[in-house]
């Protein structure tokens, strides 16, 4: 035998180690193999001759490699024991509640940190007054075109109204805007000064009002323009800019998130109500009086106005609240949909019918229901915050994509979350609330109509045995709990049975 055959033994030994490594748990396999290969190198060096193949030496090395199989199996057993311990710990009701609470805290903290989510929450806090409507001509269509003339606005404002107590007007135009950063063509809304107070929208970084000399008008930046052209620098408030030929002073930034008014505007230039240019066509926002609200039965209502010569002109009043949907509205809708769909994905029954007359005590039953309520109570805010974080984490302005993402994520999370809550509850021992384990298949599916078949699970505390039918029948349709009496104690000698009631 010549030394050139040594590589064959070496390869076969490495092959043995590789084969043994498949018995080791995947998470520890790489390190396990590395150690054995390293040791093999040293064993070969010690046991085999350098210049000739030694049968005795190769035999010893092979025996060394065969020991790797036993080691790998031992490692696998350790991992299985560890897994069972982890499973037992996760089956504890306290662990379950703690995990859910951790998810809730993490998602809530994220919602406070992510700017997009903060803006969405801010928008939901600044709810639109339900008494605000947008007045437009009936032929303005669904795109809400500017249809009301400045003359009509002046006429309504000047007259004493029964149904309205305040009006605001704005018109939109493309204008050149010069800032310290440069010159650009922006969409500018010329609005009456009372527009923002009427909407009740809080301004961000608001600066003190411009001087009374009227040399500079107050300008409100949209959230998009603020982030796009001023890099969201809060020190921009109070700085000057030129809008067309007029000098303007940035008085604040409009909040991000859903915007209730039609038109995608970069800048709001505020001017006195009397300064609205005649002949301009724009939008009118009106505030309803108590009488007006009483007449507003639907989000859209017909309004008859009197024009010149008491001629009647028909308008449509659209409630602004109907235009804006905040994240909480999507959440509520998703919740409603998910609860309606829940019976389609799981049984909502707890299905507990004891074989014997024994029932847990009232405190135990109360504890079990409290646990279910706690899980649902934690799930509901999770269903709000997690989709909110997912949908709004990178978007700071109103986006249909984000709204739909939130709606879908909330729906799916609520639906499958509730399904898990109910499934988990059905798998928990009514006495100690730990998950039942060790499933055992009993009977044969082919004998369904002759005898019972299904799965039996046992509480490791020795309290209960759960029978789940393999195929629900009229005489065994739902799972049943069997409360174990003292005759079972010998099986659970090592476990605590303090909670037996």
């Amino acid at each position, binding site marked *: 035998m010549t030394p050139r055959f040594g590589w064959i033994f070496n390869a076969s030994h490495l092959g043995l180690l590789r084969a043994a490594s498949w018995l080791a748990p995947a998470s520890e396999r790489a390190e396990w193999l*590395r*150690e054995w*290969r*390293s*040791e093999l*190198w*040293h*064993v070969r*060096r*010690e046991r085999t001759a350098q210049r000739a193949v030694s049968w005795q030496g190769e035999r010893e090395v092979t*025996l*060394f*490699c*065969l*020991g*790797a*199989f*036993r*080691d790998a199996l*031992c*490692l696998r057993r*350790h991992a299985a024991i560890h897994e069972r311990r982890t499973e037992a710990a996760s089956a504890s009701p306290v662990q379950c509640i703690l995990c859910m609470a951790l998810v809730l805290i993490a998602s809530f903290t994220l919602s406070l940190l992510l700017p997009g989510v903060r803006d969405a929450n801010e928008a939901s806090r600044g709810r639109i007054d339900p008494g605000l409507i947008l007045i437009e001509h009936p032929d303005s269509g669904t795109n809400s075109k500017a249809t009301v003339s400045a003359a009509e606005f002046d006429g309504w404002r000047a007259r004493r109204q029964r149904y309205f107590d305040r009006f605001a007007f704005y018109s939109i135009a493309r204008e050149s805007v010069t800032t310290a950063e440069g010159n650009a063509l922006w969409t500018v809304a010329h609005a009456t000064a009372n527009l923002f107070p009427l909407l009740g929208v809080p301004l961000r970084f608001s600066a003190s009002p411009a001087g009374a000399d009227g040399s500079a008008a107050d300008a409100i930046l949209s959230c998009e323009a603020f982030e796009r052209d001023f890099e969201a620098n809060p020190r921009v408030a109070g700085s000057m800019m030129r809008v067309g030929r007029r000098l303007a002073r940035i008085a604040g930034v409009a909040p991000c998130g859903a915007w209730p008014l039609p038109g995608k505007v970069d800048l709001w230039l505020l001017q006195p109500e009397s300064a609205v240019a005649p002949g301009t066509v724009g939008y009118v926002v009106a505030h309803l009086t108590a009488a007006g609200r009483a007449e507003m039965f639907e989000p859209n209502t017909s309004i008859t106005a009197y024009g010149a010569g008491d001629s009647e002109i028909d308008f449509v009043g659209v409630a602004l609240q109907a235009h804006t949907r905040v994240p909480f509205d999507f959440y509520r809708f998703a919740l409603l949909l998910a609860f309606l769909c829940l019976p389609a994905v799981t049984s909502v029954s707890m299905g507990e019918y004891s074989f014997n007359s024994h029932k847990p005590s009232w405190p135990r039953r109360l504890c079990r229901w409290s646990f279910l309520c706690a899980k649902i109570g934690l799930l509901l805010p999770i269903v709000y915050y997690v989709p909110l974080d997912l949908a709004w984490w990178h978007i700071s302005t109103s986006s249909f994509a984000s709204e739909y993402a939130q709606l879908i994520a909330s729906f799916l999370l609520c639906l499958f979350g509730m399904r898990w809550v109910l499934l988990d509850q059905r798998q928990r021992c009514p006495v100690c609330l730990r998950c039942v384990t060790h499933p055992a298949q009993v009977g044969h599916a082919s004998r369904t109509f002759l005898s019972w078949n299904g799965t039996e699970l046992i509480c490791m505390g020795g309290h209960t045995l759960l029978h789940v039918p393999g195929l629900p029948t009229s005489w065994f349709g739902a799972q049943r709990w069997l409360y174990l009496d003292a005759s079972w104690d010998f099986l659970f000698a090592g476990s605590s049975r303090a909670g037996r009631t």
Partner: protein
Amino acid sequence: MARDAAAETKSEARLSHTAAMILQAIHAGYVYGFGIMEMTGLPSGTVYPAMRRLERDALIRSQWERQSIADAEQRPPRKYYRITAAGRATLEASRKRYPLLERLIPSEEAKSV
């Protein structure tokens, strides 16, 4: 005190003669699996699983040697094992149970005496 004594008794009872021998070998300075095999005469299929159990029970701890040391000696890096404080206490208790243990594998201190 009584609790410590109970813990000691428990660990002593848990350690088999083989495990005690391996622990004694590690304590004596045989820090690699193959070295322990040679010293104790036990096969690899016994030594390595026993070392896993000892490590799981925190009686020994393992560490990879630095790559630079292995590179300098032109060999793959090895995983070496060290006895922990808990391991020393357990070994002390095991020596009382297996009096010949120290004679079979004399520790460094014993060898110097």
